[in-house]
């Protein structure tokens, strides 16, 4: 445990030099001087090639296997769970079940951050999920396991640090990779320039990986975007590939 904590501290400190390099003058700021992350963002799953009319390109984004720490002995079975024939297990989002954190962050949909001095509200367009994240508060002593977990935030200089626990065993990413109920994540947001933010996420799953690992993505601010309605159940068809004429050719 002590070794794992030491690794967490070491990985977190890797971000400090990069944070120090950010252009402090370019960072939008709140009245209290903290970086201002308010706005609608194209998250990690966009190319960030801003085109005419503030367009951007959704792009396939997953955790890079090369960034992952080695799996613990015997953990492969939990990490890559074999298909069972039950779509609820094999491909739960097909039934419009949630992505959950942290997979939700990698969905190719917009995300909005609403920031106050006391709270960060993170709204995800995909399936209308949200996280209400208090600043400078501890996690509750008894946390239920949920899809989005329990998150608390704090400032590390100009870097917003979000710590999340209480995640149920669920898919870590598409392609049938899973995480355990021991997953703990640390997200670090810092401005690179006035419209670009580095989004680094540390994955600490003591039931799966030999040590924590992290990956850095980017988010792009889109001043003209609004979150759109995304009701997965609206017209969900062809579940499990059973795409019958009566189902579709209405």
């Amino acid at each position, binding site marked *: 445990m002590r070794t794992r904590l030491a690794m967490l501290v070491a990985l977190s400190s890797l971000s400090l030099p990069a944070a120090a390099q950010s252009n402090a003058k370019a960072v939008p700021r709140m009245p209290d001087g903290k970086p201002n992350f308010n706005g609608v963002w194209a998250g990690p799953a966009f190319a960030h090639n801003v*085109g005419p009319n503030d367009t951007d390109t959704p792009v396939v984004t997953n955790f890079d296997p090369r960034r992952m720490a080695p799996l613990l002995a015997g953990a492969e079975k939990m990490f890559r769970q074999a298909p069972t024939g039950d779509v609820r297990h094999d*491909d739960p989002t097909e039934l419009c079940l949630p992505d959950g954190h942290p997979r939700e962050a990698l969905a190719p949909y917009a995300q909005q951050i609403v920031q106050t001095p006391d709270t960060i509200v993170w709204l995800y367009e995909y399936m209308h999920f949200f996280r209400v994240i208090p600043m400078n508060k501890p996690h509750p002593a008894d946390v239920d396991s949920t899809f989005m977990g329990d998150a608390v935030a704090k400032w590390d200089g100009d870097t917003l640090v979000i710590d999340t626990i209480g995640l149920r065993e669920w898919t870590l990413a*598409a392609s049938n990779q899973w995480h355990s109920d021991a997953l703990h994540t640390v997200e670090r947001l810092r401005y690179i320039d006035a419209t670009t933010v580095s989004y680094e996420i540390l994955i600490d799953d003591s039931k799966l990986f030999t040590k924590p690992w992290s990956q850095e993505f980017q988010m792009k601010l889109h001043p003209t975007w609004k979150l759109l309605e*995304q009701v997965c159940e609206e017209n969900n068809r062809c579940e499990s590939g059973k795409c019958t004429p009566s189902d579709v*050719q209405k």
Partner: protein
Amino acid sequence: MSKLAIVGLLLLSSAAFAHHAYTAEFDTTKPIKLTGVLRRLEWTNPHIWLYLDVKDENGKITSWGFSASPPGMLTRRGITKTSLKLGEVLTISGHRAKDGSNNASGNIVTFADGRDALIGQDQALRPAELASPPQK
């Protein structure tokens, strides 16, 4: 990169981009490309559906349904509901539904004037879009 690796990458991309596993619904060994008149458009989540009336060599018209990206993803790329007009002749390429019905994925749409656009889930079909802003 070997052909096999490229195919693998394509399949991985497809699986990761949809709200469900692409390969569970569509048969990637059965590409399809059909031209017809856009009879109906469902601009809905989790995927839009386009219906083409496709005429065969005997003049018989068959309706085909194509499942493409969700409205939000298309909107972010600059494709809106008005980009697809009822009565317009379109050519759509994708993969057939695994159940053999007249349904398919809609990956690329080609308009009568030769313009085309990625409307589906397979980003690897249009890699240039990842490197440069979309053109008006």
